[in-house]
């Protein structure tokens, strides 16, 4: 059977999916309760712990003494500082995005287009920077550029350049994954055709490869911009007094000045930026899907890749050097300096201090205690995020025949994605505002430790859904129909087709949820109490305090947290099915 027939069948089966509803043959009747529960559980969770707190926070910006008032808006935007902060946010995000692209695209080529031994391992390793906790990366960069650091002579401490480097540290991964994943599946024949028409490798790159990749680059860029613009931990630790962004400003206004109204107005300004980026990114994605439809050859499956040759040497050198400078140097500096005790001697003094806090420690309680609390909350957060994420993915992956239900599913999908776009600081702040009487029940959730894993689960949930959805969407609808025609009820189809597929990506989802929760800083920072903080909060506290003892503990604690997160991620990567999504 020819290519075209296959395409026709494919199109036809897609068309079947959108056929209008008729009373005849509605297979999911009697099974509706499952979808109702599957939708209601994540929805209720989001409404109570996300929509309500964030909504309440925004409302405080526009009310005064119980009446609607827009006074706060001109007040906040009349401040020159507000505009400076917004300008800095946009500048940091733009520079961070550009640097991530410049470093990420050659890396995507090397890791996804070239074929060499160890490629799989390197690809797995390239995920790690993205999931490293922000405070770990921030502390690593202070270890490289800060006072007394190997590169302190550059005078870049609390400088925009270091901040941008740290932002790129995480987001290069996003570029590698998004662009590389697309690149690997690209039909190589147009490039070969261009070569045969006499174009050299550079010319092929500019005239064929780059235009084809453009949509995936645009989509990666908007995602990176979003992550950079809402970054909290990195700016909080590295920015010092000189640099801030909207996130750190919200934190400063709310916690240091108790100015909730201004903080709420700034949250709204951030919403506007995030919404604008999301609109652009969804356009880019639509274009990308269009491009995939044209270029992607389903019969080929995974690309075989190119054997590295002399022509690829410049790209490989660029990849090696940028990786060395951006990733290896800061992490190396962190590791080495963590081994240098407060008195300058090599050894494990900083690590010993984690268990047995010295007298001049800025922390109440030990770092060891913070680690235990982090592990506990991360486990609970994972146990919330993964089941809810699975239910959400199951619901969102369905293409119901009815138009209204389809719109409903789409709305549900984007609602679950919202926490990805709303900053963690806004979320933590909102939770703090509302959870003293959740749903009017006189039980102060804020003093309970439950709120921290809930906040972490909210941050992890969109990631879990993004990872699981492609697996479920990738199931050919005819596979479910085949099961149905063998007499399987809808529930049996779910249990025997969808769930086993989901199980294959479950390891990755678990790992991601756990690692994200373990390193979560923005929301958690609002919710911890002194003496009972999580490891990232403890690290940020220690790094911000004076004294070699405190800084040494920050370094060794960052190593512990980083090693823990990286290990979880590398194990989870081995567990990934072939079909799990990219972020």
């Amino acid at each position: 059977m020819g290519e075209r027939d296959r395409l026709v069948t494919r199109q036809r089966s897609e068309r079947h999916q959108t056929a209008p509803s008729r009373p005849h043959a509605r297979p999911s009747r009697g099974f509706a309760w499952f979808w109702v529960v599957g939708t209601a559980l994540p929805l209720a969770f989001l409404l109570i712990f996300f929509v309500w707190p964030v909504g309440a926070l925004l409302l405080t910006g526009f009310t005064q003494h119980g009446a609607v008032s827009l006074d706060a808006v001109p007040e906040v935007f009349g401040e020159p500082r507000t505009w400076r902060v917004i300008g800095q946010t946009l500048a940091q995000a733009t520079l961070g995005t550009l640097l991530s692209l410049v470093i990420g695209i050659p890396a995507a080529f090397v890791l996804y287009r070239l074929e060499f031994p160890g490629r799989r391992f390197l690809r797995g390793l390239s995920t790690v920077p993205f999931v490293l906790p922000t405070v770990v990366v921030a502390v690593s960069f202070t270890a490289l550029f800060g006072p007394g650091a190997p590169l302190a002579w550059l005078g870049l401490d609390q400088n925009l350049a270091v901040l941008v480097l740290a932002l790129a540290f995480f987001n290069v991964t996003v570029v590698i994954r998004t662009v590389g994943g697309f690149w690997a599946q690209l039909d190589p024949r147009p490039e070969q055709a261009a070569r045969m028409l006499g174009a050299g490798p550079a010319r092929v790159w500019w005239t064929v490869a780059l235009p084809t990749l453009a949509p995936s680059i645009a989509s990666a860029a908007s995602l990176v911009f979003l992550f950079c613009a809402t970054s909290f931990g990195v700016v909080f630790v590295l920015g010092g007094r000189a640099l801030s962004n909207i996130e750190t400003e919200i934190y400063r206004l709310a916690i240091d000045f108790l100015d909730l109204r201004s903080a709420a107005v700034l949250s709204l300004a951030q919403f506007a930026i995030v919404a604008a980026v999301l609109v652009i990114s969804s356009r880019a994605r639509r274009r990308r899907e269009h491009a995939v439809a044209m270029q992607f050859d389903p019969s080929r499956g995974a690309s075989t890749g190119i054997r590295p040759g002399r022509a690829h040497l410049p790209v490989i050198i660029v990849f090696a050097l940028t990786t060395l400078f951006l990733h290896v140097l800061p992490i190396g500096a962190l590791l080495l300096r963590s081994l240098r005790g407060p008195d300058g001697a090599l050894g494990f003094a900083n690590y010993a201090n984690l268990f047995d806090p010295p007298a001049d420690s800025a922390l109440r309680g030990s770092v060891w205690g913070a680690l235990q609390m982090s592990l506990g909350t991360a486990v609970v957060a994972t146990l919330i995020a993964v089941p809810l994420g699975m239910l959400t993915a199951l619901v969102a992956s369905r293409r119901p025949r009815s138009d209204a239900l389809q719109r409903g599913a789409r709305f549900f999908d984007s609602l679950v994605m919202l926490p990805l776009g709303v900053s963690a600081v806004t979320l933590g702040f909102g939770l703090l505002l509302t959870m003293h009487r959740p749903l009017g029940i006189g039980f102060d959730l804020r003093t309970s430790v439950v709120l921290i894993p809930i906040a972490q689960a909210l941050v992890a949930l969109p990631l879990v859904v993004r990872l699981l959805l492609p697996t479920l969407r990738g199931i050919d609808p005819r596979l479910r129909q085949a099961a149905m025609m063998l007499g399987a009820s809808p529930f049996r189809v779910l249990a025997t087709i969808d769930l086993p597929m989901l199980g294959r990506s479950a390891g990755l989802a678990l790992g991601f949820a756990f690692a994200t929760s373990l390193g979560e800083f923005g929301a958690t920072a609002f919710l911890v109490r002194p003496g009972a903080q999580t490891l990232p909060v403890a690290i940020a506290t220690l790094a911000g305090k004076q004294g070699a003892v405190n800084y040494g503990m920050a370094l060794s604690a960052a190593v512990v947290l980083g090693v823990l997160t990286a290990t979880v991620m590398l194990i989870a990567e081995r567990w990934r099915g072939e079909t799990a999504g990219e972020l």
Partner: protein
Amino acid sequence: MATDGATDMTQQGLDARELTVHYATPGKRGSGGRVLAVDRASLRVGAGEVVALTGPSGCGKSTLLRAVAGLEPLSHGSVSWDGTDLARTPPHRRGFGLMFQDGQLFGHLSVAGNIAYGLRAKRVPAPQREARVSELLELVGLPGFASRGVHELSGGQRQRVALARSLAPEPRLLLLDEPLSALDRGLRERLAGELSQLLRQTGTSAILVTHDESEAEMIADRTIGMSGGRLLE
């Protein structure tokens, strides 16, 4: 074996009347553009009878098959079996089997797991299930393949497993959607012979959709052409 006494046959086997299926045109949402895919097709299949539907790509033959299975919503018409209307019977309760062109084997199950799938759904006890699986493997010429993974199979072997899987729950009507089209010519001809023999051997009523006239002739008792969504008779 063509339908002789039409009045006797009304209560026997499949009776599909004036089946009409519309698609929504892609791109437009709402009740806007709808394309007529199957236009008032009426079809009867007696007990043990094998009917072939032939026609060019896109003539609606696969859609008609899926409408009989209950996988496509009807805008008009009815499907009944032995005189019982199936409008309110969901696909999995119709007792029909469907074999896809590309097999649609379950990748996470072994060959035996695939074949036993329908038996499990019917809650057949394990000993009988195992016996039935090996009997079917024997029947499709793959003895000893039970514990293999489906990814290790060749195209021809896959379709044999798909056939064994559809036959396992003993469907009262087997719907075959281009079951051999994905295979190369030599294999296709050999399997067509085997398929024909198997259907006779098991006494299964079947509708075969194919664009290959010679294949239809080889397997079916009678052949109906289809064009532009209409049956030609």
